[in-house]
């Protein structure tokens, strides 16, 4: 049996370090020994294949309660591709977020902002054959956290993706354009490369926006590509 084709290493500077002093919670949670490099085997190149039959979609997060949640209705759409530009089809995306007031439907969220019984804050969608996804939600609110004095998280939606192999597993956050809190956020700024960081910010998109109904935001996601990277640093890996 031939060896499985591995996913490529991440490009330098595009991923945050585990030890990031400005984000206090990393202090006691980051490993102190270097990670041990593991050549990818079938355990890493294969991964779970979720189906909507067993993992039902929640594509409209504004219709999970008795009434519409408070807040500004939004549409988020985009495309999931790999680093070679190939679509990642039929892959499950999980999303979760705070309500419009900046509070999560979570017992440990003690922020003094109103809960919204009509907004549990969970979504689950699948990409189509071309890697496109879309869901409806409300724009989350910013909220304070105790990382440092007067610390506030920029408005964000959490994303969880699986891709086609477990080595592609990705947890990230989508931000909103023009948010003044981005400049101050240590989690956002943990990504060293500015271009990689800015790709975490969604773009307002009039084509996704629906007249008389909701603003649209585009957030494209790239998962690791497979195989060797020719021409990188002048050599073939």
């Amino acid at each position: 049996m031939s060896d499985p084709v591995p996913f490529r290493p991440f490009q330098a500077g595009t991923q945050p370090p585990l030890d990031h002093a400005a984000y206090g919670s990393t202090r006691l949670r980051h490993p102190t020994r270097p990670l041990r490099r593991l050549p990818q085997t079938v355990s890493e190149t294969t991964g779970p294949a979720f189906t909507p039959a067993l993992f039902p979609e929640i594509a409209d997060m504004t219709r999970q309660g008795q009434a519409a949640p408070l807040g500004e209705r939004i549409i988020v759409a985009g495309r999931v591709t790999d680093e070679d530009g190939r679509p990642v089809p039929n892959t499950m995306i999980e999303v979760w977020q705070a309500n419009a007031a900046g509070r999560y439907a979570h017992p440990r969220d003690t922020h003094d902002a109103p809960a919204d019984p009509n907004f549990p804050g969970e979504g689950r969608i699948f990409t189509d054959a071309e890697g496109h996804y879309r869901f409806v939600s409300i724009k989350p609110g910013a909220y304070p956290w105790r990382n440092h004095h007067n610390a506030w998280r920029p408005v964000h939606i959490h994303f969880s993706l699986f891709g086609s192999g477990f080595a592609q597993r990705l947890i990230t956050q989508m931000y909103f354009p023009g948010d003044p809190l981005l400049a101050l956020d240590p989690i956002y700024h943990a990504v060293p490369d500015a271009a990689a960081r800015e790709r975490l910010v969604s773009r307002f998109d009039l084509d996704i926006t629906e007249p008389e109904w909701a603003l649209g935001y585009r957030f494209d996601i790239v998962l690791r590509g497979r195989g060797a990277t020719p021409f990188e640093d002048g050599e073939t890996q």
Partner: protein
Amino acid sequence: MPAATASQTIGPYWHLIEHAEWADLTRFGAEGERITVTGRVTDGEGAPVSDAAVEIWQSSPPADGHFPGYGRAATDAEGRFRFTTLKPQAEPGLGNQTQAPHLSVVLLARGLMTALRTRLYFEGEALNETDPLLSAIADPAERATLIARPAGPGGWTLDIRLQGEGETVFLEV
């Protein structure tokens, strides 16, 4: 060519997408040797990590409509997690190598900017001696951080230490 999207922490409120039943990989009617896998996640001061997501993936037995091969468990106030799954079998490695039975483990939590990856092997498996990963770890104490011990009938347990004494061997894949 755009690089892969940057990772961000899963944060403390990921339980909005938690479904406790996902920790039972046999819930769709999978048949085979059923095992439970438990453990405790602790930080650099030995304190429980009570807000982590522990995920497992196993390519053996092969996933199908009755067996997802993937599970996720939340740690509790003591940092404990628990899975019910099927015992994995040996898997091909690279070249003509054979891998001992194992689970791929991903750990996600507040304070982890990227997913932490490790593996869980099973004590007493003859193939552990020749497994490509285990046999490449010279220090027996480090190797032991990847090998679950028996814990009652069908039970296996392995603690995960994020930092400091007995720090788990974490992997870059």
